[in-house]
């Protein structure tokens, strides 16, 4: 249909062919359709991509605008005067470095636990069927579908009077309260009931089912046990899917405020701090002014809603930026993982 030549601009050969009358009408029509399709695709992709990126750019613009020119009519994208004041305040308000280190460590633990539990459960559902595993699989689907908010009170009480089969009552006389302790979050993650735990089991199960079973069979014939097969054959060969799940788990746990606010409401997690700031930024800004150097503090008007929203924008960016950086690092593997994870449904 189309001819390709090296060393010339793409398409030039085609134009020459058309001029020389070497191409049929149908081929010209086809070529035209292809080009139109391409243009259409790029227009759509760019405009949709723009919708996604716009909020981030807007936040950035708002956060770097100098406080003296806030609210002034200006161009859409370029602030008339740039300053880092909003960021300086945001660092103080969020208690950023402490919060960041805590959040990253905490989230790394949660993501590891969640991925491991999901992988174990998913492998069992994919390959090691037993009587009743069909019913249990239905429970997994059920746990994806049930809004976790609808059982929040009962979950809260479970962790407040934490006692599994009366063991703690026997040991200490009283059930222990895990509210306010990170252990409650770790427990949820490690047992597959954390943030979107069911979905991870689903993704990994689909992936394990698509692995060629002959490799595992060969391992069994050669005398490898189930654990060995799982850890040294199954897991390495599904590295891409595991990356996808681990990354998603990290992102979502980092941004989660539902479980953190329910179970560890005094947590230092950045997302939670930011969430708390949403309702009232005036006092935290006032506190931050006292800490900041005089010449910076004096320009900040904490009563102005414009200043508050500029600081909120800076805070939002500071919370999201670590995720964006992480995403840039893993995006190649992540996107590949998406391609190969094969979430084939059934």
């Amino acid at each position, binding site marked *: 249909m189309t001819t390709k030549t090296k060393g010339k601009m793409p398409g030039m050969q085609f134009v020459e062919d058309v001029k020389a009358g070497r191409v049929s009408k149908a081929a010209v029509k086809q070529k035209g359709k292809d080009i139109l399709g391409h243009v259409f695709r*790029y227009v759509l992709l760019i405009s949709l*991509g723009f919708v*996604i990126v*716009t*909020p*981030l750019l*807007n*936040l950035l613009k*708002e956060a770097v605008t100098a406080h003296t020119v806030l609210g002034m009519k200006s161009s*859409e994208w370029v602030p008339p005067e740039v300053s880092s004041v909003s960021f300086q305040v945001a660092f103080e308000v969020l208690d950023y470095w402490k919060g960041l280190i805590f959040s990253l460590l905490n989230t790394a633990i949660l993501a590891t636990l969640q991925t491991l539990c*999901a992988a*174990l459960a998913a492998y*069992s559902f994919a*390959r*090691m069927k*037993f*009587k*009743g595993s069909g019913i249990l699989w239905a*429970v997994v*689907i059920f746990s994806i*579908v*049930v*809004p976790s*908010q*609808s*059982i*929040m*009170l*009962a979950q809260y*009480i*479970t962790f407040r*009077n934490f006692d*599994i089969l009366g063991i703690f009552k026997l040991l200490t006389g009283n059930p222990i*309260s895990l509210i306010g302790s990170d252990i409650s979050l770790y427990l*949820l993650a490690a*047992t*597959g*009931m954390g*943030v*979107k735990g069911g979905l991870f089991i689903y993704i990994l199960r689909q992936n394990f089912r698509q692995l060629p079973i002959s490799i595992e069979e060969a391992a069994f014939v050669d005398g490898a046990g*189930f*654990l060995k097969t*799982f850890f040294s054959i199954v897991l390495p060969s599904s590295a891409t899917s595991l990356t996808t799940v681990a990354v*998603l788990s990290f*992102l*979502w746990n980092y*941004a*989660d*405020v539902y479980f953190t606010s329910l179970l560890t409401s005094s947590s230092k997690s950045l*997302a939670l701090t*930011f969430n708390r700031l949403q309702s009232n930024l005036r006092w935290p800004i006032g506190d931050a002014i006292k800490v900041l150097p005089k010449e910076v503090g004096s320009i900040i008007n904490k009563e102005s809603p414009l200043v508050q929203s500029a600081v909120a924008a800076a805070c*939002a960016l500071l*919370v*999201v930026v670590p995720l964006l950086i992480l995403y840039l690092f893993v995006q190649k593997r992540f996107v590949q993982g*998406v391609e*190969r994870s*094969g*979430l*084939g*449904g059934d």
Partner: protein
Amino acid sequence: MSENSKAKVKGEKKSFYSSLDFKKRTAVWGVIFLVPWLFGAIFFFLAPLIKTFYYSICNINIVGTGFTFQYVGLENFKYATGVDPDFNKDLIEALTNVATNVPIQIFVALFIAILLNAKFKGRGFFRVIFFIPLILSTGITEIDLSEVINTTEETTSIINIAWITEIITNSGIPTSILSIITSAISNIFDVITTSGVQILIFLSGLQGISPSLYEVAKIEGCSGFESFCKITFPMISPMILVCVVYSMADLFAAADISDTIYKVTFTSGKYGLGASMSVIYFMVSIVLIGIVSWIISKGVFYYDN
């Protein structure tokens, strides 16, 4: 359940284990691999679920460090549906939200996935962009990003697509359909940012379709649209079911009603009432998701079978 735990106990006895055949050993290890999840499913999911039903028919008070439960029958349910000012309104809002947004989400996600699936220059770049919503899709960051945007005047002008709405309003389409379309257009930001997972599911589904099917179709003279209807759509239909279920669950979980329940439960301290609201909310969402997925599963095509 009792069978499983028995099987586990048996598995731990070495001599007994060695006498099992391969199938039974697989079953034993299957249970062992499931232990962590099983623990969570029982104690942190099923038990709280049953307890929620129990709380909903009780009046709950805090006494010291514990709770007292007093049976009140269906009082809480009557209060939630009859007296409480917000609950009915929120429930209906959640339902209409799900009914309008799920089809749009599925359509947009499938569309974007198909766009991203084809081979073209800069595909990697666009994929990176289109998965950004996954980062912002749960938790507070995404919600508050859009809130911050709406507070500033200049920024709304970018997302505000009033002129498109105007064109559609003057086109003579019935107003009932129109209101759905216009709300969809003004929600496009929300729709795209909340359909990250669906795009992911569709994209990996599209990757799984064998290219030879398309080759055959092309040789037989199918147009692009025909091969979409006869190959892509049937092959992707299982993923549509998955996405619909996921979208519905996600939208129900993100609805304002969960905030209302949280406030009633923890801010006002009406634990029993909150539990009964949770039960209604849960039953409505489960029944609806069940019905919809049952209907869709009738039309799903499975390639393997």
